[in-house]
């Protein structure tokens, strides 16, 4: 029985089908302490983007907009092929162009990278998210946003090592590539992998994609790209969107693809120790106050205090007929 689709090269069904991605397949759920383990383990899937085959045609952007029915703005040209100028809540994926002169060969290379959610194994967005169930991770590796639970706080943007999520100014919820969870749920591949003309984007099980990547890397090495390699960053536990890069020794030349991405230490601190110490501190102070209130005697005003005050006022009043000293 097919648990995860093996390829994106297939025609979608039109007959009604139950979805194969349900709440029972979750392995992580934002802001949820006790999540029952899934009853089955879906075969991990992955999208492989072979930058050396990518012709920067933006079919993935078109297919993504059409499949997800988003509404990207028609901006203006600012002297770049990158349109829109950044990922937005209506553009989940984006071709980023870099004109790079290879120092060794002195040849111009036009490095074109399809930016978008990497579907990390250890998702920073999910870790940072304060809203229960707003971000979920399925056992096949897909990290998805559940809009009805999202509160639009933007913590996911802070958590993400790749700066991917975007908050809509219309419904104030976060948007990003969903790896076409609705297509995968009926056995199809993502719309971008289906559309990609040169099949630079391919989709299947993570193992198959790694094997496919190896063949591509061998081919690239045969063409003089000694450092060709697979970008599957361990810093985030590996990703379910991987790249084959000509120059895997310096990913940053591909429009700032992080060399060693990981969830920022500040976020880890924020979501880790700060949470506990913060609650502990507040708890302690509160308990301390209560205990002190119960066991410690209240600090009451005594009758002699009132009397002393009376005397003070009386004496001041008799002396007081003199005008205020300037003091």
């Amino acid at each position, binding site marked *: 029985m097919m648990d995860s689709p093996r390829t994106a090269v297939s025609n979608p069904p039109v007959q009604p089908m139950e979805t194969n991605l349900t709440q029972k397949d979750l392995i992580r759920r934002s802001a949820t302490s006790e999540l029952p383990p899934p009853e089955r383990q879906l075969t991990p899937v992955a999208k492989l983007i072979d930058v050396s085959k990518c012709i920067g045609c933006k079919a993935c952007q078109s297919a993504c907009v059409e499949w997800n029915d988003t509404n990207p703005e028609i901006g203006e040209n600012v002297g770049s092929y990158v349109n829109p100028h950044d990922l937005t809540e209506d553009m989940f994926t984006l071709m980023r162009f870099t004109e790079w002169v290879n120092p060794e060969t002195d040849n111009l290379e036009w490095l074109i990278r399809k930016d978008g959610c990497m579907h990390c194994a250890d998702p920073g967005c999910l870790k940072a998210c304060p*809203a229960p169930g707003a971000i979920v991770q399925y056992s096949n590796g897909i990290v998805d946003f559940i809009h009805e639970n999202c509160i639009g706080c933007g913590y996911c943007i802070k958590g993400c090592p790749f700066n991917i999520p975007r*908050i809509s100014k219309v419904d104030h919820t976060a948007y990003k590539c969903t790896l076409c969870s609705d297509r995968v749920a009926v056995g199809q591949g993502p719309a971008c992998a289906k559309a990609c003309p040169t099949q630079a984007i391919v989709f299947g099980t993570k193992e198959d994609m790694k094997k496919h990547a190896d063949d591509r890397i061998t081919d690239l090495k045969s063409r003089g790209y000694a450092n060709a390699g697979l970008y599957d960053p361990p810093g985030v536990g590996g990703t379910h969107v991987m790249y084959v890069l000509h120059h895997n020794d310096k990913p940053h030349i591909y429009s700032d693809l992080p060399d060693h991405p990981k969830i920022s230490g500040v976020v880890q601190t924020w979501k880790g120790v700060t949470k506990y110490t913060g609650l502990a501190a507040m708890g302690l102070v509160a308990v301390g106050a209560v205990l002190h209130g119960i066991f410690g005697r209240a600090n009451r005003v005594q009758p002699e205090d009132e009397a002393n*005050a009376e005397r003070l006022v009386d004496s001041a009043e008799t002396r007081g007929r003199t005008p205020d000293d300037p003091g």
Partner: protein
Amino acid sequence: MTPASDIQSEDTIHRGPPVTVNRYGPAKRVNHWITATSLILLALSGLAMFHPSLFFLTGLFGGGQNTRMLHPWIGVVLFFSFYVFFFQLWRANIFNRADMEWFMGVRDVIGGNEERLPEMGKYNAGQKVIFWSMAILIVILIATGVIIWDQYFHSYTSIQTNRIAVLIHAIAAAVIICVFIVHVYAAFWTRGTLRAMTRGSVTGGWAWRHHRKWLRELAGRGRIDPAE
């Protein structure tokens, strides 16, 4: 020149009997309670987003989205209302030598025997600590709060700045809640304090016991109303 006086214009002694002393005018009291309410609401809504176990608190604000939307606006209210308060009282909260001794004797403070402590002005050292920590923390909170207020200020700062800001915001919030608890508890523990912020006056004895220097100064200056 005598040290700056920590007397406000509305501080007056009512002859009574019984002797009462006006401590806060109506404007200050309203101001205080606006600040207090907004801080409480901020605490509740903040805590809801601080830890999953407290997310149920968002129910008070009509759901997660509303909580996220309201929290920053209340923060702005807190900031302005607090600083209206601050600019009237900051002179009265400047530390002096007496406060040092007060700190030394903090065990006596907790034990309730204030006799062994130096006579305190309008605000004792503890209250000054509360005042200044509130002042500093609220500045930190509004600064970091604006940075992480993505709805309007997303594009102005880098993500790394945002991360540091949200960490500081969380820490400052935790601290301010602790300070708030101490402040509230102290007000209850020291009986007769609450009325200062509700009715605006305290009993003469309260002033004698806790802020004798303040009482003496008022009396010394003849700030005494004739008995009604």
